[in-house]
Structures are given as C-alpha cells and as structure tokens.
C-alpha cells in the first residue's frame, strides 16, 4: 500500500501537517533527521508578542504588523485560519490542559524574570499569567544550575504589565530531600515523580510562604505524569503553582512532543526519526519520491503529497556556506534572506543576515525553484523553513508552525480530493 503523504520534519510544523492529513484520512509518514525545536522549547505557543511594541491582541494586531513585513510567513495565512489552527490545537492538546486565546496575550515570567508575551500555555504554566499583577514566591532548587530564583525574582519585581497592576516577587531556595548534588533536569524530573520527594518539597515550600498568592517553580514537574506532579504540588502548597521555562532540554517541550507523536500514531500515522532526506525523484512537475538516508543506507520513499517542514538554519534544513551561499538541503529550493541585511550589524540585538533565511514559496506555500515558479505541484512548505520571520524576537515561533502546517495540510488535502 502506498503512502498518501510524506512529511519531512518532526517539529511542530511537520507534526501539525501530519496530524491534519491523518485526521482527514490520509496515510502519513513523517521522516525526520532529528527532533527539531520541540524538545528544547518551553512549549508556550507564541503567535505574536512584539511588533516591536508589546502586542496584547495577536490576531487583532496581525494586519498592522504585516504592513511593515512584506516577507513574513504570516502573509500567507488569513487571520481566520491562524485562529482556526489555534482552536484546533487547544482541542488536540486538551490532555495537557492548554489554555489561552489568540485574542489576548498572556504575560508569563521567563527564567530571568522578564514578563514575556505568549498565547497558549499548558496547565502547568497557566497560573503564571501576571497581566493583572500578582505576588509570586519564586522557588529555586539547591544544586539545580539552570534556574536562579533570586535574580529572577528581583527582575520580576520590576516588571510593569500594561494593566498598571503590581507584580511582587520573592525568592527562596529549597533543598530536595536526599542527595543535594548537581541536579540535571532529567534527574530532577524523575525525583519529583517520587511521591515522598514531592511531599517533602511541598511541605518545605508551604513553610516558606508568606503573603504570596502564587508559586513559581522551574519547569521540571514531571514528564509522563506532569499533571499529577503539578496537581499534587498545588495541593501540598495550598496555592496555584506554575512552571517557569528553563534552558534546554525542556520538560514541557518533551511532553508536547510525546503527545503529538502519540496522537499521530493513534490516527495510524508513523514518525521515523534518524531519517535524513537527501534528494528526490520527480516526473515533470510532480514529486514522486524522496531519497532518505537511514543508518548509512539510502532508500526511496514514494508518496502522492509531500510537506517540507525541515526547519531553517537552526535544524539544518537550510545550510549556510562560508562564502555566503544558502542551500535548502533536500530539493535545492530557492532560499531568501527575507529582507535581512547582507552584512552583519555590530549590535547583536538587531536583524542579522541569517535571521530571516528560509525558502521562498508561492501563495499556495509551494517552494519556488530557480526559475521562479513552484518547484513541484505536490510539495508544500511550512514552519521555520519559511523565510521572513524572526520568531525569537517577535515571539511567533509555534504560531507560524501551527498556522502554516495547518494550511499546508489543507492545501495538500484539497489537492488530494
């Protein structure tokens, strides 16, 4: 039996496209060299956070933002479809308790204590929206090197949400029972899944609470059983508890990744990791198969429809050479700088030459070839592979992946019908 759709890339964009295609009845195979951004990312779904001023209503302000960004990937998608993709995601990720609305950004503390706009968050972070102020006890864990509660709390106490409400924050450091040594996140997560350890931590936090009405902890509240760990801790502490993102690897990111993988499997789809696409076979303007390298063996995988969701510079979907040449690795699709300057600027916090690099596509999200027309009629691109965005600055990463992955599946599905 042939495969209806092959999706290249197992990041958010690829998984969204795969899930949508599978839900519509297609047989789907996801091929990915690695895992992409998901297991590293905090799994907060950004849509638009800065334009460059703070955005409160992402969908409402999208059109205004796009006026100054003709090359932005959101240009491809109607605001209505962005909203639809987020609604779909909220439903899909209900088991992780995702909440939020694309009409209203939340302001959640970062690991350094900045108040950062984002749209949808899992239940374990839900209480961390400080748009209307709040008083937070920030809890550090002794020996955990990737979370520094005092600096976080001091910065957070200076945050000014636009509502004018006051944010207060105080840091405490607690020890986990047992071994106080170097706590890598992977270890920490497992320890917190032990009942006794969690109880001890809960008691300790409770005893340190003063006036605070919220408790912020590093995002290490379990992997498989995060609901139980988070819920358990809230009960023990007697206050709403929320996770604050830590640097990679990210537990919330891995939870979301596992969830998406499982959801696809339930729909009969398959994810094959360690499979690098390194070429293709085409007939005329139809793509027939991709060539995939697994464990030093090259195989051809034929399908009717293909989605290119290989990410950009960050995951190797696009590479930059020492002489400045840019290459989309699988199809040699046309790559654009998305309006970024040619030469690096001195100031780091500015748009740099490779920041907006991605493939160029037509209105239907089909990558362009050298001639300027679509490379293949049955290949669509989505996510960080698209040119024109600076998602880390404008806070739009997962939103772009969701909207364009969602749309790529619709376009491919339309072509299928």
């Amino acid at each position, binding site marked *: 039996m042939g495969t209806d759709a092959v999706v290249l890339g197992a990041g958010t964009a690829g998984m969204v496209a795969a899930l949508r295609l599978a839900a519509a009845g297609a047989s789907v195979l996801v091929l990915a060299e690695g895992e992409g*951004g998901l297991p*590293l*990312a*905090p799994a907060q779904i950004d849509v638009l956070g*800065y334009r460059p001023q703070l955005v409160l209503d992402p969908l409402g302000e999208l059109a205004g933002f796009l006026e100054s960004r003709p090359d932005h990937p959101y240009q491809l998608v109607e605001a209505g479809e962005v909203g639809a993709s987020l609604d779909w995601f909220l439903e899909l990720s209900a088991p992780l308790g995702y909440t939020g609305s694309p009409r209203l950004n939340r302001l959640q503390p*970062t*690991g*350094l*204590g*900045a*108040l*950062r706009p984002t749209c949808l968050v899992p239940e374990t972070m839900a209480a961390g929206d400080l748009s209307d102020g709040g008083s937070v006890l920030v809890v550090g864990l002794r*020996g955990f*090197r*990737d*979370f*520094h509660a*005092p*600096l976080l709390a*001091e*910065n957070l106490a*200076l*945050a000014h949400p636009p509502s004018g409400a006051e944010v207060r924050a105080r840091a405490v450091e607690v020890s986990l029972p047992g071994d*106080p*040594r*170097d706590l890598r996140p992977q270890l920490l997560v497992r320890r917190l899944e032990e009942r006794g350890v969690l109880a001890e931590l809960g008691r300790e936090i409770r005893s340190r609470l003063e006036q605070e009405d919220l408790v912020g902890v590093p995002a290490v509240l379990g992997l498989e059983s995060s609901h139980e760990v988070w819920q358990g801790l809230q009960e023990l502490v007697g206050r709403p508890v929320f996770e604050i*993102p830590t*640097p*990679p690897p990210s537990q919330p990111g891995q939870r979301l990744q596992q969830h998406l993988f499982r959801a696809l499997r339930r729909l009969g789809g398959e994810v094959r990791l360690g499979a690098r696409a390194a070429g293709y076979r085409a007939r005329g303007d139809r793509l027939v198969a991709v060539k995939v390298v697994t464990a030093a063996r090259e195989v051809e995988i034929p399908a009717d429809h293909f989605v290119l969701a290989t990410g*950009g*510079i*960050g*995951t*190797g979907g696009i*590479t*930059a*050479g*020492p*002489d*400045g040449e840019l290459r989309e690795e699988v199809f040699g699709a046309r790559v654009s700088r998305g309006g970024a300057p040619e*030469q*690096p600027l*001195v*100031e*780091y*916090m500015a748009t*740099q*030459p*490779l*920041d907006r690099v991605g493939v160029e596509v037509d209105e239907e999200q089909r990558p362009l070839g050298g001639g300027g027309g679509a490379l293949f009629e049955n290949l669509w691109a989505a996510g960080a592979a698209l040119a024109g965005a600076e*998602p*880390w*600055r404008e*806070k739009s*990463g997962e939103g772009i992946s969701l909207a364009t992955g969602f749309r790529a599946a619709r376009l491919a599905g339309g072509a299928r019908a």
Partner: protein
Amino acid sequence: MNTLDTDVLVIGGGSTGAGVAWDSALRGLHVTLVDRQDFATGTSGRFHGLLHSGGRYAVKDPGSARECAAENRILRQVAADCIEDTGGLFVSTPEDDLEYADRFLAAARAAGMEVEEVPVGTALRDEPRLNPKIRRAFRVQDGSIDSWKMVSALLRGAEAHAATVLPYHKVVEVLRHGDRVEGAVMEDQRTGQEVRVHAGCVVNAAGAWSGQVARLAGCEVGVRPGKGVMVAINHRLARAVLNRCHLPSDGDIIVPVRTVSVIGTTDHPVADPDDTECSPEEVHQMIEAGELLVPGFREARALRVWAGSRPLLPKTGGSAGAGDREVSRSHTVLDHGARDGLEGLVTIAGGKFTTLRLMAEDTVDVVVRKLGRGSECRTRTEVLPGSESRHFYWIGNRQQEAETDPPDDPLICECELVSQHDLDTVVARRPTWRLDDIRRALRVGMGPCQGGFCAFRVAGMLHQEGRYGRAEANSALREFVQERWKGVKVISWGAQARQTRLDRWIFEGLYDLEHLPE
C-alpha cells in the same frame, strides 16, 4: 582622592607590564601596576598563543630568533604550568620554495635553536591531518602559552612581593613637575573615582597604546598598531604547532590550544589599537590559508574570531617622523630622560609575548639605574607561582581532574570542564569580575557552545552569592552576548550558524533578554 606612593608605577597589565612588575618586585622595589581594563585584555589576551621557537624569525630577523630561542628555554623552566609542550613543525608545502628550507635550517642552527629535519613520512605519521604533499619538515621547540595563566602568575608572584595591582584603573593624567615625571592619576573605570600614584619611576608598558600614554606625558613614541586576525577552530587539528616554512606571511601558523586550534594571522596597519573588528574577507583568507597546511580545514567549524594590535616600533626608536622604515619585532627600551630630557619615565615598546621576560629585564635594568636602588635580575631562575612542579600543562590533566573532582562540585561549563569550585576560586581572588573576564580566566564559554548555556549559570550564581547586583547581572549578560557576537558574526556558517540560531532562541526567545529591565 586616594593617594599612593610607590617606587615603580607600571602602566599596562599585559605580558610586558606584568613581566616588569614581577622583575621589579623580585629586585626589592615596591611596584604598583595599573590597567584600564582587566589584565591581559589588550594584545596579550588577543594574541596567537605561540611560544616561539624562533623559527619564524630565523631567516629574516636572526636577532629576534636568538632571543626567542633563549627565552623559550627559560620560560619552560620557570613557567611550565602556563605552557603546553606541543613541539612545532616547519613544513614546506607545495607552494613553498625548497631553497628557503635550506636557508631556514642553517639560520635556525645559527640562532641556537634546537632543530632537526625529519622525514616527511614521520611528520605525516605524527600529524595525520597535515597536507600529504609537504616536501620537507623540521621539528622545533614551539609550544603554546596561555596568556591569562601567564599574566596572572606573574601578577600573583609580584603581589607575593608586596606589589599593588589595580585593574580597571585608567591613566588619565601623567603628573609632571618641570622636567620630571612624578606619577600619574588614574580613574577607576567602575566607580569613576580618581587615584593618584606618586612614583620614583613610571614605566609605560601600554603596548600598542604606549603612544597614547607617552602623549599624556608630553612626548612622542612612534608605535604603529598592526592588527592581526585569528580564527579558532573547534578541534585540535594537530598535536604540534604547524608553521609554513617560508618567509613569514599571513595565515601560516596553526597553534593547538587546549581543545581548539587557532590559525593566524595577518598584519594591517591601523590608526587605533582598539580597532579589532574582523572582516569576512580576513576570515576567509585565514580559512583558505589553513587549507594549505591541513586539507579539509574549510570543513572544520570556526568557533570564534578575534584580532589584536601589535605594538610595532620602527627601528629608529620611534622618534616622530621615522617614516616607513623596516619595523623591528625586537623590543626597545626608551629612556625619556636621555631621549626627550624628561626624567622619571621609561617606555618599553615592541617585542613579543615570548620575550616578555627579557623585555622586563632590560627595562628594569634602566629603572634600577635611575632609582639608584634594586638588586640584580632574578627572573631567569625564579619559578612562577603555580609552576613549582615544573610540569607542563596538558589537556588530559583537566579531564583527569574533572573525573576525580568531588561529586558535589558540579560542572558549570561542560565544554571546558569548569566546575563551581573553579569559579569560586577565581572570583574569590578578585571580587570585581565581569562575565567576559571570567570567560577569559576560566575559558567558560570558549568551547563549542560558546557560552550559550554557561553564561546564564555564571551570572545567576554570582548574583546568588551576592557578587553581582541585579542590574549588574543583567548587564553582564547583555555585554556577554554582545561581546560574543563580535567574535562569531563573521563566521556564521555551517554548524556555527546553527549554534548562533540556538543562542538566539535561548537569550531572546526563552529569557527575553531584550525586554529585561535595565
């Protein structure tokens, strides 16, 4: 205003100034050493890291070659902990004149270097990555030398002999009384406070900046800053220092330094020694040059780029208007009393890191004569703090240490195996550290991740320990990402571009550093 009295005021805390401080202190003089920044942040912290055998100068500048050969031998005895005994090879690539190789061998012997020709097959066996088309190979006593360790050992040694060292103290005024220099006024770069130092003798060891300092005293020193670019690659591509056997030119040396290799360098006259920008063209020139010594060099991942300014002095002694004369790599001690009728000021200019000890000896000989005090030079035999065991530094040491580190001493930098304890030790030594100074001292953030992970850890820990205030920690991080960008922006390709993207996500996406309060 604070006022201090001292015998010798040394301006500049690079290798030269630190050497002068150590030498003077051993002769029983009271020394005060100042630098406008942290130590070894001028050219000494931006150099190639080669402990010269002398081979580079053998044909063109035999005097320098002889000095290097002799000083190399001495430093191996007194500063072993700062040196990696890599050895070195001079090889004739297909583009190099074979006749030069004969001249090289003769000149090297004449300069007193230990040198032997080795069969090409042997060289290739020892250095499998070396260009298989090389036609001749000579083994020499090159090494690699850690600037930060060296300067810090010299200063610790001087401090043990009552020296005062003041980082972040910029000389803003030279105190003159008629035809005599009597000291200087420093401005503390962190607090803005002024400090006045009265000295029996002032030594201008400001390297490429020594012209600027001399001008404060009202005289001219014609140093001409010559900028050189270096690129670090994320592997140790060779065991030994690899040199092309030809007349010295650009990009013809690869120095293995700890876990990385550094290729360099260039030489462009610049007006301002603080001009250390590197252009993409310069970087490509280095990468292409590396290809000739080590085929496949292009594919290696470039980690960081930097440049330093040579303090070159025209052979005439740098009097104004010396013109375009041949510039010497050897050093010169300028006695401004004899030269300009201005007593109490001595400038030491030119030279090399490798010859820092000799430069200091020559300088302090003049100082002692002027002060009419001070004993004989002892730096030939006095072993520096940290080098008592006389064991050379070896990368394996660090790995062994890390494996036997107490388990409750967590690593804060996996790339360079730096532990919490290392951080505490270094910070305890001097309380006013910038993140970038710590990076240099511990090599935190110098490995493949270039600080993406550990910069936040270090800032957070120092804040937690009360060493950084909140705003200081924030600005330290901002400064760190900015400083690092300077080092990677012209090598953003391949794996480095991926790393840069990940860092974008971490510092801006995850922490939102851009919107953090001041």
